């Protein structure tokens, strides 16, 4: 999925037709293995209740139906849970983009005492595992009266060292003259950030935004820790409760799983390139 390189490989890539066929066969087999779990779950969610009990392992539904998906949607109130997940993810993504932009700008373009020290603290926050912070943040949220609320879910996630770091890297690569020319033109910091620096870092913003959305949508421990009523539950927590512990309801769980994974799968296909940029940020040089 990362960008297909133009075909610039001579000699050794012109392998024999037999080898090419062999590679295709291998690719197809491996692709089937990777996809098999998804296929099995998808088919299970398209079977009716009795069908899923009688033919739990058949890879094609005997009587194909939308009822299971519809039932799971209603029984689990998945409309509301999806909405909660969506609102949470959008707010966190927007917040992280804004706080990262402003902080990165200060670290890249402004001069102030303790700049290096403060930036080191920002970087160090990346090392602290969620297991440590959630324990205490849960109590902070409770004492603020934000338990079981969207505010409580969102606020602690609104700033990251990672976002600040990534955008600062981009800002540092912008030509210094740009800032100087802007200040000669009388452009203030806010205007320069909004009209010059941010637009120039659009690819990184897109990557950071997608990555933040993805990780927030998929959060598990944090929403489980600060929400215990069904009204504010997120999708990831809700789908596990769909079967009420009954094995003949297991196709409802598969339906919920499909519903929870679908938006991300669509997003993945639609924005592959940006997402890959985000995921590989820092991993690959050049």
């Amino acid at each position, binding site marked *: *999925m990362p960008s297909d390189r133009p075909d610039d490989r001579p000699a050794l890539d012109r392998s024999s037709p037999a080898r090419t066929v062999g590679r295709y066969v291998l690719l197809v087999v*491996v692709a089937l293995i990777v996809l098999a779990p998804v296929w099995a779950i998808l088919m299970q969610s398209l079977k009716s209740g009795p069908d899923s009990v009688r033919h739990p392992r058949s890879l094609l539904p005997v009587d194909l139906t939308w009822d299971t998906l519809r039932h799971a949607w209603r029984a689990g109130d998945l409309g509301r849970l999806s909405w909660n997940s969506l609102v949470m993810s959008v707010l966190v993504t927007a917040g992280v983009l804004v706080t990262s932009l402003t902080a990165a700008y200060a670290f890249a373009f402004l001069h102030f005492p303790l700049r290096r020290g403060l930036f080191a603290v920002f970087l160090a926050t990346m090392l602290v595992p969620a297991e*440590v912070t959630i324990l205490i943040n849960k109590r902070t949220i409770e004492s603020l009266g934000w338990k079981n609320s969207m505010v409580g879910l969102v606020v602690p996630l609104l700033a990251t060292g990672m976002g600040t770091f990534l955008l600062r890297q981009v800002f540092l690569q912008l030509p210094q003259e740009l800032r100087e020319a802007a200040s000669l033109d009388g452009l203030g910091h806010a205007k320069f950030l909004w009209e010059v620096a941010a637009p120039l870092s659009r690819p990184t913003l897109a990557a950071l935004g997608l990555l933040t959305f993805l990780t927030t949508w998929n959060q598990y421990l944090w929403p489980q820790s600060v929400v215990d009523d069904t009204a504010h539950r997120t999708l990831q927590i809700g789908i596990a409760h769909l079967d009420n512990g009954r094995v003949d309801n297991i196709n409802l769980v598969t339906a919920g799983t499909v519903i929870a994974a679908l938006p991300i799968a669509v997003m993945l296909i639609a924005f592959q390139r940006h997402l890959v940029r985000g995921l590989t940020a820092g991993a690959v040089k050049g």
Partner: protein
Amino acid sequence: MRRRWRDVPAAAALLAPSAALLGVFVVYPLARAILLGTRKCNVSGRVCKTVGWHQYVTVWRSAPFQNALGNTLRFVAMTVPIGLVLGVGLAVLADKQLRGIGVFRTIFSSTIASSVAVASLIWLVLLNPQIGLLSHLLKDAFPVVKKPGLLNDGGTAMWGVAISSIWAGLGLTFVIVTAALQSVPRELYESAFVDGAGAWRRFTNVTLPMLSPTLLFVAVVMTARAFQTYGEIDLLTGGGPNSAGRPTETIAYLIYGKSSKIRNDIGIQSATAVLLFVLLLVVSFIQFRVLERRVHYAE
């Protein structure tokens, strides 16, 4: 000197939101947890008293922590090497200019779309002893998948969790390694080819050395994640199966699990979380130190 102070008001305004948020929700919790780790609470969790810094030693030596530590290390050893090898294998397999290769790359990276919860529930169904497809396919080779079920046997439950976790992580490893493969200069392969190196020699002598910084990075990230495994345990085993001690209770699950023994004691929980933090720091540091010597960084 004037330049140094001129920007202060602007910097303060721009940094205030992030600094306040990171301060309140990362720095403060860390400091607070370190201090709370010296306290111990009664059964209800309401009355706590300070017992001192040696509680960290007490917790480290305690049976639940040692059990969780062992399980966590076992889980890391199960998932990281296999996940890495499979991810590299997929990336190398798909690193070829063929018609339709984009489709295969999308498929191989598709597990990125699955969250911890989605992946766990998928495998919970597939491994279900009564109706699971995988249980059915493997029942002759491994009778345990039917009776009592891979996740219901204390000896094999962790493998069930590992399978789910490896599968879910495959997409990310694939994407990162694929990107790294594409940045390997073609000329290196060509000169190796001209020198008469076969496919395997080209892989070991060109691909692996050029990939090594990326593989180091991926290994460190995968290890850190595996050390923090919680959701998979919560959904697949709950730390159990119940009959046989706590064979799948990881450190993170010991801290947060519904059925964890220390669940009501914020003091012990904090101490455990801080120990996990220190452990992560030490392990990442060692990985960078030990592995870096074997890593080839391109200029």
